[in-house]
């Protein structure tokens, strides 16, 4: 069942309340007019199609829901997503997919700075470029970038993996290029497939890319532990005080 909601007539509170009280179905949201916190806290397998651009934190903490935005998104798209799918046809501002624990975020356009910051298991596929400090302190999950990555990619990265097809302006602290294994290629193929839209639909083919064209970046793991010297022990070994 599809329910149409016009945000010029209904408050954000009413919309989110309905989404929280619904177990299933499809909602079409008209006139989002850049609303913040739209479709946040969904914990059921509902589908929300937003016709227009959204503000901050759209689909925040999404769990099992599907949120599709035909437009652009403000800061913190799908922040802390747990599972499900969040997809936008346009560009996302800063911190898209921040701290996401699971699920898939697809941005057909570009993503701004700090895309995938502190990600904890989410998969993010960006059709265009990502801004500086993307995958900052990224802990787990995959960030796939079909375009270029700006400066300090993967700064202080943990176990997340970053695939970039285009140019990387610079890598951040402790982030290095890694060898792509067959397992990585499988992961990449799976994500590209999951992110692609079927032929004949809006933006079809946006995500088409060959896994072999990508390079892989991850942690050098040099910052995982403090380096602690012990001169006393060395002195004792030499019989010195």
């Amino acid at each position, binding site marked *: 069942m599809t329910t149409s909601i016009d945000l010029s007539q209904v408050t954000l509170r009413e919309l*989110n309340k309905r989404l929280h009280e619904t177990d299933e179905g499809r909602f079409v949201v008209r006139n989002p007019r850049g609303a913040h*916190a739209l479709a946040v806290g969904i914990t059921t397998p509902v589908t929300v199609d937003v016709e227009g651009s959204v503000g901050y934190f759209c689909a925040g903490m999404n769990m099992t829901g599907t949120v599709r935005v035909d437009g652009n998104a403000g800061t913190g798209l799908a922040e*802390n997503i747990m599972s499900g799918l969040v997809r936008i046809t346009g560009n996302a501002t800063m911190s898209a997919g921040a*701290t996401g624990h699971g699920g898939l975020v697809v941005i057909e356009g570009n993503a701004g700075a700090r895309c995938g910051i502190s990600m904890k298991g989410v998969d993010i596929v960006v059709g265009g470029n990502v801004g500086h400090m993307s995958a900052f302190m990224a802990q787990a999950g995959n960030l796939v970038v079909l375009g270029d990555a700006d400066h300090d990619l993967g700064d202080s990265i943990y176990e997340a993996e970053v695939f970039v097809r285009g140019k990387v302006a610079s890598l951040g602290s402790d982030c290095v290029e890694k060898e792509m294994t067959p397992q990585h290629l499988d992961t990449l193929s799976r994500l590209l497939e999951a992110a692609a839209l079927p032929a004949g639909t809006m933006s079809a083919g946006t995500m088409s890319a060959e896994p072999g064209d990508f390079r892989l970046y991850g942690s050098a793991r040099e910052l995982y532990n403090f380096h602690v010297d012990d001169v006393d022990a060395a002195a004792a070994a030499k019989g010195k005080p």
Partner: protein
Amino acid sequence: MNQQQWHHRESYTFDRNVIAEIRRAANTGIYRIRGWGAKRELPTFDDLVFLGASMSRYPLEGYREACATDLVIGEGRAERPVRLAIPITIAGMSFGSLSAQAKEALGRGATAAGTSTTTGDGGMTAEERGHSETLVYQYLPSRYGMNPDDLRRADAIEVVVGQGAKPGGGGMLMGQKINERVAEMRTLPEGIDQRSACRHPDWTGPDDLMIKIIELREIVDWQVPIYVKVGAARPYYDTCLAIKAGADAIVVDGMQGGTAATQDVFIEHVGIPTLAAVPESVRALKELGVHREVKLIAAGGIRSGADVAKAIALGADAVSLGTAALIAIGDNDPALDEQYRELGSAAGFWEDFQAGNDPAGITTQEPELASRLDPELAGRRLANYLQVLTLELQTLARANGKSHVHNLEPEDLAALTVEAAAMARVPLAGTEWIPGDS
């Protein structure tokens, strides 16, 4: 004079602690990381006294007349405001830095006393949720273990911008405490020296925070209050901005506030004392016309009912305890002196919360050590301690003629030092002089 003494004169500039630290630094090449809070001498609430009743002020009977202590946070905005029996809460401390037994003990003690406890930088555990009637869920930059289910299980959400021990620093948990369960809850490899983010990943500045608070309220359907916690750095401005962002309560944590693990240089040299921070936050609340409506929770070095009463008299609505609560449940117990000494410390001095080898079973993840702490008995000790603080608070409030502790006011106080008079903006005892005001 005995000439011998001059050969043993300790340098004020290079005392034994300074020498030990230089030697430690020269051996290891890494800054000192430790727990506890600031250990240096600072202006404190001890530098204030209550005036008590007199010809013009009537006291209440100490044992008979009612002196209420209850507090409601978030009324008017949250569907389920936080209702506390006493204005003394337990501060955020993570599972990970503390053992599951210690978290349970804090929950038991706080619940028995009718107050709240708080999660920390490691998510919410079933144990602490189960044993805490009122649980505040911290929303930290790291977002370890953050999820909408736990968010909705919380009785309040505390957006942590900073903490008193390290305004501007993120959490820290040394590898020896990152066991399998802790690592899994935080999505990190086991055994790493975890340094949490110090900035929130998806908002910067007060305008963003306002939208973030709306998002959190929307996720939990406006059910529970939202607190904002800041380290005492610029409390006047931070309080103004937190009010503007829509917080129901502001927690201001002074530099005496404790930590599980932080650089010593950070603990001792960043932030301002609690005594100096509270009046600045109150000034912001009053200027914006929301004093006693948006609640102020003062934290950092609160030890006694006198501290609680003085913080409230200066305009706070409640206080929060961390270090004192750990001591109440058994930290630095003299009975463990020998074991502390084996670790190079002694009862009364132990501060190595980062090390994970706490003989009291509190700041550890070692199952054998943690099992030494009996959560039921430790919880009883905490409940007793909170009761004493409350009785002391009421004693002081009655002596000043107040039928509710929130009626305490700066007029009830005098300062013993010029510094305290200037910071607290109460007159120097025996004068009408408030430095800077006249």
